[in-house]
Structures are given as structure tokens and as C-alpha cells.
């Protein structure tokens, strides 16, 4: 239930009608969603679930199908391995680690977009990673709150 709720919340954030010029300054919400799940509830995730959950984001963004599945798998892998070490550290350190993971995901995203005929700007992707890391703490709190809302409290989110 928490997964569906947080997934729908992320879909709504991505589907918000905003001016085209704002796009470079928006965080990559779906990757933050996966980061939260990989850090705090990875025992309830599966690779198939992530693969399926990623497809609507590709459709909403208009990106090639499979791009978000790739990013989700990478972020989930890295943060699940790091999870035990960074789950309890303060929010600043956690944001730094999240930035590094999002930065690696941005590099892979850059490669994948180039592979499919796009001409992305790495600086914009890294800026999105930085904005995502800055917003990590509020995102973590909101997802934690959503989790509590459906009576599934999560360790280490408060």
C-alpha cells in the first residue's frame, strides 16, 4: 500500500503541468522515490516491481521506454548496498551520499540518452542530481509521513 501511495505521489509530481523552461531546474522525482525505497524499505522491493513501476515515468517524461528501469535498478542496487551504513547518519551526510548516487545515475542516464539519439547536457543532469540531493530531506520526511499515513512506519526516517 505504501509503495502504491508513494508511487502515485511521484507520478503526480511528474505529471504536474509546468512551463518547459522550468524542466532543467526540477529534481528527478522518480529517482528520489526509488532512493527512499532502497534505503528504508528495500526488503519489500523486487526488481520486477521496479521494472514495471518505471514504465509510466518513461511515458510521462516522453523518454525512451526502459530508461527509468535502468536508473531504478542502478539506484536501488547502490543504495541497498550502502543502506545499512547511511540510514542512521545525519541528513547532511545522507544528502551527500544521495548526491553521489544520483550523480552516477545521471552519468548512466547521459550515456543511455546518447545511445538512443538524444543530445543531453551533462551539466543539467548533474544540476538535477544536486537539486535532488538538496531536496532529499524533505522528500524523505514526506514519504515517511505517507508511510505512517497507511500505518506502515519506517525505521530511520524521523
Amino acid at each position, binding site marked *: 500500500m505504501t509503495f502504491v501511495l508513494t508511487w502515485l505521489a511521484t507520478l503526480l509530481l511528474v505529471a*504536474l*503541468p509546468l512551463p*518547459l523552461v522550468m*524542466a532543467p531546474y526540477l529534481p528527478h522525482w522518480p529517482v528520489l522515490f526509488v532512493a527512499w525505497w532502497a534505503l528504508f524499505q528495500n526488503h519489500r522491493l523486487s526488481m520486477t516491481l521496479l521494472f514495471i513501476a518505471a514504465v509510466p515515468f518513461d511515458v510521462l517524461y516522453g523518454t525512451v*521506454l526502459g530508461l527509468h528501469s535502468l536508473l531504478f535498478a542502478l539506484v*536501488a542496487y547502490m543504495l541497498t548496498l550502502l543502506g545499512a551504513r547511511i540510514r542512521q547518519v545525519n541528513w547532511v551526510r545522507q544528502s551527500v551520499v544521495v548526491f553521489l548516487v544520483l550523480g552516477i545515475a545521471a552519468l548512466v542516464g547521459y550515456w543511455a540518452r546518447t545511445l538512443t*539519439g538524444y543530445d543531453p*547536457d551533462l551539466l543539467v543532469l548533474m544540476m538535477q542530481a544536486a537539486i535532488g540531493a538538496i531536496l532529499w530531506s524533505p522528500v524523505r520526511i514526506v514519504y515517511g509521513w505517507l508511510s505512517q499515513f497507511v500505518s506502515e512506519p519506517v525505521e530511520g526516517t524521523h
Partner: protein
Amino acid sequence: MRPLFSQTSVAAVRLVIAVTFAVATMLIDSRLDGLQIVRLAVKTALWPVEQIAGFPANATRAVADWTQTRTQLAGRLESLAIENERLLTEQLKLHTLRAENSELRRLLGVRERVNERLLQAQIERVSNDPFVHRVTINRGIAAGVQIGRPVLAADGLVGQIVSVYPHASEVLLMTDSTHQLPVQVTRTRLRAVAFGTGQLDQLELRNLPATVDIVAGDVIETSGLAGRFQPGIPVARVIEVIRSPGQPFARVLCEPAAELSTLTLLMVDVSDEEVGQ
């Protein structure tokens, strides 16, 4: 549920499998265009989500419309009346030109565009990905929209339809970095291809020789080659021609005729007859 990555080696294997599947999906979608049906199904299922997400903006717009003062409405009405007068005068000229054009086409034996029809559409949302220049409009299969149809704004070409759904369509803007458009320079009839640069205010004409006769201010229009766009639709205006010493090609940068960053209303060309001879 089973843990996602219980051991590092297992995790690595699962990651490799997931990455392989994801890359294969990407290649199938981008190179073979074989997953349109998945896109159609998912987009249709996401319709309620898009409506909910668009509700605050729509409600704000509705409230703003309701709260306009009488003076504001009167001012708007007056400016629309003036604009209407101007358009009616233009239409008179257009009738004459159409008749002349029809006569010339008949004499030359060139097929005429029959039942020319433009369908008005409103932008519902734009892609929030900075490198994907796509917008969703509120007209789809039900309104007769088809893939490949040109999309116009008041000032010129905007792009073309790339996906159609029952009640919506996706428009690929001509500035998207995957978009290429056959064009010509109005002044010299020089043919070229306009490439999207991934920036909303820029197109580029590539592979033109350094000695090409093109200057800043030249108007670029569709050439009609490839049969998708009617010839003569304004596309862009040349803003800079870069000729580097020793380089065989010039870089020609253009600014789109339509203001793509502030679009709200669009026209989809749903004419029955394709361009051609």
C-alpha cells in the same frame, strides 16, 4: 517478499539482468519502434493521474477568468474586435490569392490540397524532462489526429504529432534534438535540413558549405520535401552564421518563428490530401 539484494553476488547478478533487460527495451523502443502499443496502453491508464495533476492549474485559470473585471473584459473585447477587423481584411486578400493559386495549379497540372482543415488544440502538459521537447494536446484519435500531422502556431511551425491516444496526442517540437526538418531559405530557395538542438530557442542548419549565400535575418520555411509538411510554412529566422577559417562547413543558427516556450493554443493540420505532385 524476498529481499531485493540479500548478498552482494546475488545483487550483482540481478543488477546485470535488470540492466540487460532495460537496455534491450530501450533499443527495441528507439531503434525498432516496437513498443508503441505499450506506450498507448500506459498513457491511457495514466489519464486520471494527468487530470488530477492538471486540476490546480485549470482551477486557477478558471478562477482568474471568473474574477476579471468588467474594464479588463471590455479592453480585451476591444482588442479582439480590432484584431478581427484586421483578419477579415487579410482574409479578403487570401481569397484572391487562393483563387489565383488554384488557377495556377490547374494550369500546371499540380494536385490541389483539398478539404484543408486545421484543428484547434490546447496544450495540456509539457514533458518535465529537460531534453525531451514534447507536449501533450487535448485532441486525439477521436478528433481525427494521426501520427505525422504537422502542428502549427500563429507564427509558424511548431512540430509534428508522434503519438496519438483516444483523447490526446503528443507533439514532438521541432527543437527536440531527435527532430530533423527539410527546409529552404525563402530569399534564395536554398534547401537544407533544420536540426533540433535541444534548446527551445534554437535550430541549426547543418552541412552547408562555408560559401553558402545565407545571412542573419533570412527567413527559413518548410520546403515540402519528404511530403509531410506543406511548403512555405514559416519555420525560423537566421540569427547567426558562423564561418570558421579552415572549416568547410558553416554553422547556421536560427530562432524558431513560433515562441515555443509560451505556447498554449496550437493548430493541427488534419487536411485530407497530402502534399505532393
